[in-house]
């Protein structure tokens, strides 16, 4: 391929033993080698699993100060229901929480959390913005990862996953009832 043999074109004027070229055509080897390189390059770079860190609370923590940090006005509680339904409410002392729906789309969630973060930190009596995520059993795992991801993007300094309580499920049910009326 890369070598064009022109030695025979001059006619048979020369006599004597025919000279045989000792060169080996390397082109196919190079072709093959590059093909394999491409293959290995593609398989290596596309295959690095990524991980995302989540901190879970200590269930055996007895010190109430440490355990109940997510109390008071600084906390937003997000509830996840099935079919990508999200709700949120803010914890207020001695007040029935008001459940509100949260549209499940990245932009909306991000906007919501960044505005809430600003609002809560601006009040001044909160040292940090806390978000507690609670999911019903039939919520999807994808929702959980999506929400955790948004926390990291928005820069919520404290967030965690907690078991959903009966009161929370009741709130969702009540909300659904009033919404369907």
């Amino acid at each position, binding site marked *: 391929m890369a070598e064009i*043999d022109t030695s025979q074109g001059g006619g048979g004027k020369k006599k004597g033993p025919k000279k045989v070229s000792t060169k080996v055509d*390397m082109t196919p080897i190079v072709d093959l080698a590059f093909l394999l390189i491409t293959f290995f390059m593609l398989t290596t770079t596309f*295959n690095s699993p990524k991980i*995302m860190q989540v901190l879970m*609370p200590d269930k055996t923590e007895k010190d109430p100060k440490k355990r109940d940090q997510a109390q008071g006005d600084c906390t937003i509680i997000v509830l996840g229901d099935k079919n990508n339904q999200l709700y949120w409410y803010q914890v207020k002392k001695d007040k029935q929480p008001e459940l509100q729906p949260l549209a499940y789309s990245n932009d909306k969630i991000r906007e919501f959390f960044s505005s809430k973060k600003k609002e809560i930190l601006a009040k001044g009596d909160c040292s940090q913005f806390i978000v507690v995520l609670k999911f019903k059993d039939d*919520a999807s*795992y994808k929702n959980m*990862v999506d929400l955790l*991801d948004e926390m990291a993007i928005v820069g919520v300094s404290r967030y965690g*996953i907690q078991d959903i309580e009966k009161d929370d499920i009741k709130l969702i049910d009540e909300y659904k009832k009033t919404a369907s009326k």
Partner: protein
Amino acid sequence: MGKIKIPRKNPSMDMTAMADMAFLLLTFFILTAQFKPETPIEVDAPSSTSNKEETEKVVKITVDTAGKVFFGIKEPKKREEILRGVAKHKGISGKLTDDDYKEFAGRENFGVDVKDLPKILQKKALNASAYKALGVKVGIPMDSANNQLGLWILYANKVYEIERAERREAMDEKTKAIIAKTSSEGLSPEEKKIWENEQKNNLKVVIFGDQRSQFKVIKQVLDVLQDRKVYRVHLVTNLRESAGGAATNENKKDTKK
């Protein structure tokens, strides 16, 4: 007048150098390539924007949509040690031969009751369908009466704890103070390096869950981990291409329905 003879030249190119280089690169890529480990069950990970890479010292819990759990230890050297611990605890050491241990050290994942482990090791069953063919129940039991997943975590932690203690011994007081911090904030670049290195060397518990699975499936695993005092959990995710990705698309799909 005689014609000027132009010497005929062979228009060939020496490919040897090129072939050399190509093979050099090829060797490099073959040696550094890490193939996707064979997963015993189909799992479709959710995506996130986190770009932290998985490290070497990882215990991976694979969970499928039905809540079947597989356990994997990434470092081959540690696998045998962990199995010895669990087998002793469960009193089945006698049933496992040296060949079984060797076979176990060679596989990254498994997901059966410890009692069935000798069977699948001897028959070299690698994935869920092979387990089923042998009549073995797929998935590691993790109910409160027979919490084997917790047991595996416990022994994995023990084995890595020994390694960690050895590493600690070799350190001076200053480095010990650095690695005791909970975050790398406020450290100088060199100190940060030490801290990050220590983080890399710590055992990480990673959950590889399917994005279609329900939350309760993952919660079961999280509960087991919490009981075992593992509070720092990692989730395997695919890298999301654009920041406005999956959730928005999902929403569009739903409104179409």
